């Protein structure tokens, strides 16, 4: 009788432990930690977009400044810029003048992190956002991961797109995700230049063998994202042709929590299996 009671108590402990472990895991490694990491790395900055001529250089740059940026990363500013050398004589001919610099400035809260302080892994196990890089610091962009492929090589995945006339060699900026290390993207798009805009996806092969993608629709030049869901849906359709018997498409299947209001992204990634 005593043994039976002991067995029941032990069994109850075992059941309780089975229930508690996933809950504890969810709290410890899941959404809460990601949210906390995001909050810890979000800092108030002043974003200044400036196009000006100075000291022989025509510069179009986006600069982020703020006391917290300096305090955390030891840098005065985070800049992504394009420089072109123009002699003072040519600048005078072109009417370029430091007094006529076009500058817009806005205060916002954005996520920055050092290369050795990567983003916390989401509960899903997949990267969530993409990053631009400058001077040892990564800046999180409002561009979400919204597609996942499993069971296929990156080249096989791209083939489905290039068969539809997409281009594998394109003009694009290089952006990054963190997957054990910082990885640069491999881009595919409807056109090498996309002067009039069009769909564009950045792909990364993860250490697990899976591939994640950040699909978006570019505006006409100068580019900016005008759609996430639209591009996701059009690319997804490439794997749903009648002859695509090995591809299995699950629209908005995996919750990544990377909701964006404008342009809209619902926070779910389309999952495409190859088996």
């Amino acid at each position: 009788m005593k043994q039976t009671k002991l067995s029941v108590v032990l069994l109850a402990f075992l059941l309780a432990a089975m229930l508690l472990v996933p809950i504890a895991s969810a709290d410890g490694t899941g959404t809460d930690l990601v949210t906390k990491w995001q909050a810890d790395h979000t800092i108030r900055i002043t974003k200044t977009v400036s196009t000006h001529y100075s000291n022989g250089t025509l510069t179009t740059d986006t600069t982020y400044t703020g006391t917290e940026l300096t305090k955390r990363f030891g840098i005065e500013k985070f800049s992504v810029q394009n420089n072109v050398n123009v002699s003072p004589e040519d600048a005078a001919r072109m009417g370029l003048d430091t007094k006529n610099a076009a500058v817009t400035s806005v205060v916002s809260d954005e996520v920055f992190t050092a290369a050795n302080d990567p983003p916390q892994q989401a509960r899903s196990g997949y990267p969530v956002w993409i990053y631009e890089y400058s001077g040892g610091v990564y800046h999180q962009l409002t561009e979400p991961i919204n597609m996942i492929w499993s069971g296929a090589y990156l080249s096989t995945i791209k083939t489905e797109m290039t068969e539809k006339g997409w281009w594998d060699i394109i003009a694009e900026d290089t952006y990054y995700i963190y997957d054990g290390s910082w990885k640069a993207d491999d881009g595919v798009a409807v056109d090498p230049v996309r002067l009039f805009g069009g769909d564009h996806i950045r792909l990364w092969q993860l250490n697990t063998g899976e591939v994640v993608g950040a699909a978006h629709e570019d505006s006409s030049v100068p580019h900016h994202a005008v759609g996430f869901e639209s591009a996701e849906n059009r690319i997804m359709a490439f794997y749903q042709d009648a002859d695509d018997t090995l591809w299995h498409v699950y629209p908005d299947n995996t919750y990544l929590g990377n909701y964006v209001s404008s342009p809209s992204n619902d926070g779910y990634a389309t999952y495409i299996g190859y088996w």
Partner: protein
Amino acid sequence: MSPETLNPQKPLNFFSALLVSAAIAILWLIPVFTTGGPAATGGTGAWGFVSIIALLSTIIAPFAYGWYSRDETGAILVGALPFLVVTGVSRIISSNSHPGVDYLACSVFYIVSLSLVGGLEGFFAAKKTARSLLIALLLAGIWAGIFFSGIT
């Protein structure tokens, strides 16, 4: 004898300048309309090569036209007009219906800069002196730099 005397400017050949400008604009438009517009599902495929040719033409044409014709005004048109027309058309047919003020300002600066630099490239090429040709080449490089800054 000054280089200007050796290479006198030719009068404006409006028809030729317009013809070259129209040809460049058509080159840009071909890949879009052969594949059903910017929102089309499929890519431009082999027509994408026409995009690359159009891009190279936009850079080279003002230089080549100015150098060959010595028509300064015409070369300015060839450098400025095609990109203005094409980006104007792109605003009409693209799906970016609600751009922000920042983006609008950025777009205007981008397009005006490219048209200005393209026009100046043609102007200096038409002068056809060693120095002006060098400046024109430099401006062609600047044009490419500004253009690719808008391709993300």
